[in-house]
């Protein structure tokens, strides 16, 4: 502007020389000519600088919009300029303060506008004018309501200025794009022409808002009126009211100080390179243009075609991939490549049809508007691409500068280890002591330096040493943790904790941490290490979670096959608890440790994580690929280890630990179980009847309850056998023990003591009962103390008690249950822990596999409870816990871990002991409630509907015709009993649970044998109306059996 000053000095009245300057000045000249300077000065606070900028921008705009915006505007309002000037108020713009000062200083204004004004005036007027101006200014500010927004303005004052409901409103009016200013000026002109007819207060065009102007008016109608007839304003479109709250925002100006400097990273906003990373090589602040370095996306073929004048498809559907320009390649395609020297920098560029290339990069000059420089986070890959072999250090610095720009507040924290990367103190390491605004006080680690040094934040970089354990706090691998292996400049290489892979990250993105995480471990519903079903019916284990996809190790045993899978490609998660058979036909369940004996991964060993369709996913810690997962056929693995030692080794501690936690599960479950579950132990009853028990006379040790540890001779069997520890051979089941056989020492049938658990109502009595029962136990089980209980249930209970010998069955069970031997070691030991409730260690292991009969025989729960706290008693059972942790496939949905389905199939063969005792004991049967017992014969009654389950066949419904003395039943198949007649062992039949309003037969209690109608079900109780007496009774559901409809 200095030359303008010169003009001034020359007293050159001539306006014209300025003409070429800027449009803004232009306008003002017009004005000046008009001789109405004073008036103008009253209303125009500032014009010059802001205007210049805007015009500059508008040039750019023109580039983009081809708009006649600027031109049109000029054309539109210039003629009226002089009168219009008084209405222009641009006070709101940023630099108004400065401008005002200038006006005060008036005389030696070097401001372009002022100068112009002056040049327009006859010289002699000058002095006068100045005085007049001064006066007018003073007058103006004296009366002006304008308040200067200096620092002293308090919030309250500011608050008072905010628009309220009484103030005129701001309306947003749509206008032609690029003609916002024109529209505003048109409105102004209209106002001038029409005077107060027009009831609008002001019109505002914002540079950053295209397509709209704001009009200040009291009513919408006023706005409409004002806009009527203006070409550039779409008056018929909707006029929107700006909410009062937002009014201030409309007019507040955000200073967008874009700090673009060389070597910063930016992203392109438009065009072919949209989104691409670019590096600024030159900035022209005056012209608002920057030269950036890009990786070119040029389709050489298309270029060649174009240059040779061949037909080029106008629209290219695709964006050519970014790759470095190869000049030789271009030459080969007969594209003319010129080598030119840049006049300014002196560098040589290859010029291909107007595009400049150097070292394969494209150098492009673009408007500042077409790049974004805020929040650029170049990824490592992008930076790598930009990095040239020769410019290591340079590249580092470049990315550094960007990193610095992107640092958040509070980037450094006290205690961080830092290194100085710039300046004289470069490479000095230290620790952050204090952080101020931009300065960081560090305590250097070198001798002879002051205690703390204040260093600019930008000169610092975080520093890590190999071996530090760190966490990535931002960037692509955010969340991952690992140990620093190497530090390269400000890039650190980390060994990820989970993947054991190298991660390269910027030191700035890392923080020291002792935490161990894997980064993101889940997307949507799927988590790392889940077994998932994929779209195409294949399945696999998620072995890695990437930003938007999973790596899945597919279930193909022949070779490890990894697929990258998107979230939507996953059909569902598979968490079914299945099991499979290993090489030697032993069952394998989840968490079993297996060794692979065949196939590519032979020799590996680890716990089974998932089983699906006979494919095992094994986790081997030493297997480093695929996150340690190995996929193998179940047949090519063998289960390693057994239950031996588990109980002993870990069981004890765990058991006791868990037993506290496991309380509540058991009791509640039982009711649900009724239908199939726990049969009464009829066997025991028999025995009672017979008055003979193989245990009698043997020495036993009481294993649980208050008398735990006591030994004694069995006088009579009234004992819950769970409390008896059997001889060693039996009590420590060993995998290799022959499967069928050993157990046999308990001749009796494992009883499932029945009722207890489910007879909820009974529970308390049960507690009572047990509490006095046990003393008898102490007396080596004297006599049945509890015969005369009135309550039917009690009675049942009492009678049931003898059964308890059955309890000890578990082991037996284990012994002959084919599944048992293989019981998964892992699970089992938890289950097995003796401490967990009454079940003997052996017992549990057996249970999971053997559906036949349920581990948690209610009785055992009962047994435990000796203390009389019956309700609690059931609970300690560890099942729930153990299973939850290591769900065995056998117990599909039973949280409690009691597999209920007595699968007699497997079971029976072994049972020999069980059956014999059944017969005869009709009288004792009181309780025989539920289905599924081994001793069903005892309690099965003619005419009831049963499910017959035989090995290898599906369950068939049938009607019991006759109960044979050996406990088996003759059954007519079919729901009405008109099918084939078969003989089924008692353990092969399940009673069909009656539904409401079914005809039922009472299977236990005093009314055993009588029939009735089930008129309601209340939890585990059924409400039965007896046929004979018409009495309504509440009976346990488990002693009710459905009666076949048609005899």
């Amino acid at each position, binding site marked *: 502007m200095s030359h303008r000053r010169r003009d001034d000095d020359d007293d050159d009245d001539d306006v014209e020389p300025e003409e070429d300057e800027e449009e803004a000045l232009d306008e003002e000249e017009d004005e000046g000519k008009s001789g109405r300077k004073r008036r103008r000065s009253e209303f125009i606070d500032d014009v010059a600088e802001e205007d210049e900028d805007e015009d500059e921008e508008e040039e750019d705009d023109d580039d983009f919009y081809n708009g006649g915006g600027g031109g049109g505007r000029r054309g539109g309002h210039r003629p009226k300029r002089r009168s219009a000037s008084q209405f222009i108020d641009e006070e709101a713009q940023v630099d108004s303060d400065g401008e005002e000062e200038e006006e005060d200083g008036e005389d030696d204004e070097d401001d372009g506008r002022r100068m112009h004004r002056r040049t327009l005036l006859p010289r002699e007027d000058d002095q006068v004018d100045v005085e007049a101006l001064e006066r007018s200014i003073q007058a103006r500010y004296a009366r002006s309501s304008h308040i200067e927004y200096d620092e002293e303005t308090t919030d309250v004052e500011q608050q008072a200025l905010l628009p309220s409901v009484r103030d005129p409103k701001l309306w947003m009016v749509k206008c032609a794009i690029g003609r916002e200013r024109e529209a505003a000026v048109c409105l102004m002109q209209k106002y001038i022409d029409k005077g107060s007819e027009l009831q609008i207060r002001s019109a505002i065009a914002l540079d950053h808002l295209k397509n709209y102007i704001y009009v200040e008016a009291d009513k919408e109608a006023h706005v409409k009126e004002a806009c009527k007839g203006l070409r550039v304003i779409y008056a018929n479109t909707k006029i929107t009211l700006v909410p009062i709250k937002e009014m201030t925002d409309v007019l507040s100006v955000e200073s967008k100080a874009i700090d673009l400097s060389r070597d910063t990273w930016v992203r392109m906003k438009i065009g072919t390179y949209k989104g691409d990373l670019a590096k600024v090589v030159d900035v022209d602040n005056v012209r608002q243009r920057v030269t950036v370095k890009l990786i070119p996306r040029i389709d050489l073929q298309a270029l060649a075609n174009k240059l040779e004048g061949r037909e080029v498809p106008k629209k290219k559907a695709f964006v050519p991939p970014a790759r470095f320009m190869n000049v030789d390649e271009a030459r080969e395609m007969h594209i003319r490549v010129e080598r030119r020297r840049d006049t300014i920098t002196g560098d040589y560029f290859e010029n291909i049809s107007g595009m400049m290339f150097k070292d394969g990069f494209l150098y492009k000059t673009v408007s500042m508007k077409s790049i974004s420089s805020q929040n650029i986070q170049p990824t490592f890959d992008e930076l790598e691409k930009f990095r040239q072999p020769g410019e290591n250090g340079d590249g580092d610095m470049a990315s550094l500068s960007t990193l610095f720009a992107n640092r958040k507040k509070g980037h450094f924290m006290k205690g961080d280890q830092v290194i100085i990367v710039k300046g004289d103190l470069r490479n000095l390491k230290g620790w952050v002591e204090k952080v101020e605004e931009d300065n960081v006080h560090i305590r250097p680690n070198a001798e002879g330096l002051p205690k703390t040094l204040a260093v600019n934040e930008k000169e610092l970089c975080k520093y890590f040493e190999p*071996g530090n354990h760190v966490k990535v706090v931002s960037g692509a691998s955010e969340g991952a943790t690992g140990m620093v*292996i190497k530090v390269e400049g400000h890039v650190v290489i980390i060994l990820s*904790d989970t993947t054991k*892979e190298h991660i390269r990250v910027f030191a700035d993105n890392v923080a020291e941490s002792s935490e161990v995480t894997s980064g993101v471990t889940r997307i949507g519903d799927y988590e790392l290490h889940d077994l998932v079903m994929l779209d195409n019916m294949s399945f696999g284990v998620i072995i890695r979670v990437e930003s938007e996809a999973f790596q899945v190790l597919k279930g193909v045993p022949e070779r490890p096959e990894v697929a990258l899978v998107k979230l939507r490609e996953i059909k569902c998660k598979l968490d079914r608890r299945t099991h499979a058979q290993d090489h030697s036909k032993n069952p394998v369940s989840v968490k079993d440790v297996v060794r692979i004996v065949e196939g590519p991964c032979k020799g590996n060993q680890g716990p089974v994580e998932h089983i699906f369709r006979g494919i095992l996913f094994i986790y081997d810690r030493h297997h480093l690929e695929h996150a340690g997962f190995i996929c193998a056929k179940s047949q090519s693995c063998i289960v390693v280890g057994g239950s031996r030692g588990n109980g002993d080794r870990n069981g004890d501690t765990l058991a006791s630990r868990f037993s506290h936690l496991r309380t509540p599960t058991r009791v509640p479950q039982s009711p649900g179980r009724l239908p199939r579950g726990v049969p009464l132990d009829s066997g025991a009853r028999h025995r009672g009847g017979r008055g003979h028990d193989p245990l009698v006379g043997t020495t036993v040790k009481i294993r649980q309850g208050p008398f735990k*540890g006591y030994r004694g001779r069995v006088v009579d069997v009234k004992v819950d056998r769970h409390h008896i520890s059997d001889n060693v051979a039996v009590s420590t089941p060993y995998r290799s023990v022959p499967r069928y056989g050993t157990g046999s020492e308990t001749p009796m049938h494992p009883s499932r003591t029945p009722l207890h658990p489910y007879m909820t109502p009974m529970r308390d009595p049960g507690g009572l009962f047990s509490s006095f029962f046990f003393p008898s136990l102490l007396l080596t089980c004297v006599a049945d103390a509890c015969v005369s209980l009135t309550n039917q249930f009690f009675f049942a209970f009492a009678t049931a008690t003898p059964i308890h010998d059955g309890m000890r069955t578990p082991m037996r069970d284990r012994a002959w249950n084919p599944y048992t031997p293989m019981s998964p070691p892992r699970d089992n030991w938890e289950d097995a822990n003796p*401490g967990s409730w009454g079940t003997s260690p052996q017992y549990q292991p057996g249970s999971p596999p053997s559906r036949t009969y349920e581990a948690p025989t209610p009785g055992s729960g009962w047994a435990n409870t000796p203390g009389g706290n019956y309700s609690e008693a059931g609970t300690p059972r560890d099942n729930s816990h153990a299973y939850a942790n290591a769900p065995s496939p056998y117990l599909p949905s039973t949280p409690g871990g009691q597999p209920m389905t007595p699968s007699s199939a497997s079971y029976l063969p072994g049972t020999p002991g069980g059956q014999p005792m059944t017969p005869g004991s009709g009288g004792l049967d009181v309780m025989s409630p539920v289905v599924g017992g081994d001793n069903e014969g005892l309690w099965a009654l003619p005419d009831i509907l049963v499910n017959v389950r035989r090995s290898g066949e599906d369950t068939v419904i049938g009607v019991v015709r006759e109960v044979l003395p050996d406990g088996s039943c003759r059954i007519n198949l079919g729901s009405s009993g008109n099918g084939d007649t078969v003989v089924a062992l008692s353990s092969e039949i399940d009673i069909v649970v009656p539904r409401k309003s079914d005809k039922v037969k009472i299977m236990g209690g005093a009314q055993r044998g009588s029939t009735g109608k089930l008129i309601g079900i209340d939890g585990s109780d059924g409400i039965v109306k007896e046929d004979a007496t018409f009495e309504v009774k509440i009976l346990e559901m488990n002693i009710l059996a459905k009666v076949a409809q048609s005899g």
Partner: protein
Amino acid sequence: MFFHMVLERNMQLHPRHFGRDLREKLVAKLMKDVEGTCSGRHGFVVGITGIESVGKGLIRDGTGFVTFPVKYQCVVFRPFKGEILEAVVTMVNKMGFFAEAGPVQIFVSNHLIPDDMEFQSGDMPNYTTSDRSVKIEKESEVRLKIIGTRVDATEIFCIGTIKDDFLGVLGGDQ
């Protein structure tokens, strides 16, 4: 580094073990429970060398288990940063190699392998110098320096380097 130290543990013993050889049972169980475990603080318990004292047992309500506070002497092994160890290579891949020194797994990244050793893939992946005089493959014995440890509740994992004087493959051709 190995330490001989006295640790304490509360042992829970099942009542079935009560009897004459309760103490033996207790010790046997202690060994089973403790040997081979790893605690972040002390490292791996390599072996129990003796029992200092067995406190009075406390019967736990409800379970009948008895808790004995047992003080025992044991040898523990805990790797430290900067420690030099000899280890056996268990696995070699392009990222580096894993080695084991007793119970400790140590990873040596390829960044921490001397630059003149290059990864050779194949049946027996290995790192070899250009003149083929030195080879690191599975089962090789190496001397390495631990530069970082990560201590979990149940595991100690280390990273090591052989990029230093006197580190690298042991024996054989050297």
